[in-house]
């Protein structure tokens, strides 16, 4: 697939607006940061009264995929070539990295930059750089299929 042909400025901006609205809603109603890795990590801390909303937010995310894929299964296509061991290594890196680094694309990249947080801006630059280097190595050195 030619990626430039799949560039979706309008749909991506609209999707971003919905993501921003969801994050804004969580802030206004519950006073929390909509960082998915932070929401997930907090479940393991098991602090009383602070677990169920986290689980329900993730159930909401899961349900969105369940319902949306019924109508638009192509939106969940996995059109890159990755072996199971690579997916496992990637998952472990994302799981541990986001906990050590206190956030991910949503917590740092959207909410953090949105709050003009210096920490989140540094974190976002950090994960953007290593993601770009990783993709360069995968595509240009390893031939795109790992």
């Amino acid at each position, binding site marked *: 697939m030619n990626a430039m042909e799949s560039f979706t400025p309008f749909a991506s901006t609209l999707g971003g607006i919905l993501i921003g609205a969801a994050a804004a809603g969580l802030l206004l109603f519950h006073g929390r940061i909509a960082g998915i890795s932070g929401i997930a990590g907090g479940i393991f801390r098991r602090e009383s009264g602070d677990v169920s909303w986290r689980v329900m937010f993730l159930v909401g995310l899961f349900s969105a995929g369940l319902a949306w894929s019924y109508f638009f299964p192509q939106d969940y296509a996995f059109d*890159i070539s990755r072996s199971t061991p690579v997916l496992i290594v990637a*998952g472990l890196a994302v799981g541990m990295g986001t906990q050590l680094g206190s956030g991910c694309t949503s917590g740092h990249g959207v909410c953090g930059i949105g709050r003009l947080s210096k920490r989140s801006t540094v974190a976002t630059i950090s994960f953007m750089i290593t993601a770009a280097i990783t993709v360069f190595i995968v595509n240009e050195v390893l031939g795109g299929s790992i």
Partner: protein
Amino acid sequence: MKIKIGAFLGGLLFGVGLAIAGMTQPAKIVGFFDFSGSWDPSLAFVMGGAILVYTPVYRWAMRSWQRPIWAPTFLLPTRKDIDWRLISGSAIFGIGWGLAGYCPGPAFTSVGAGSKEALTFGLAMLLGVGAYQLFIRLREGRTGTRTDEHAAAMIDG
């Protein structure tokens, strides 16, 4: 109960936004970082759209709201220091993100969509999250105090 329903609706809206934005397709994430190939700038538009909505709401809430609607206080990050955990943890996350094209949000919602790749990735991700949190809990148990690592682990998002 209303907090639980609200959180569910928040996750639902977030997940639909991710799908419309194209962020549940790892090829679009990899495409954003593929500067040497055919670049797909979509991710920047997603983040831009989200920040465009979030920033004014956040500033308005901080300026004019005493408290959120359903909670006694805003629980927001307070740390300002840049430490090695922030930078190295984010760097590790970026490697995983570049490898699989999934960050946590799209991974959870793609598992709901029945993606086998997302399920494999997501289980490993939860293992990573759980292992880190368990490690921090064990350290706290030994010292009997909440460590700053633990506080830092969740405070940004």
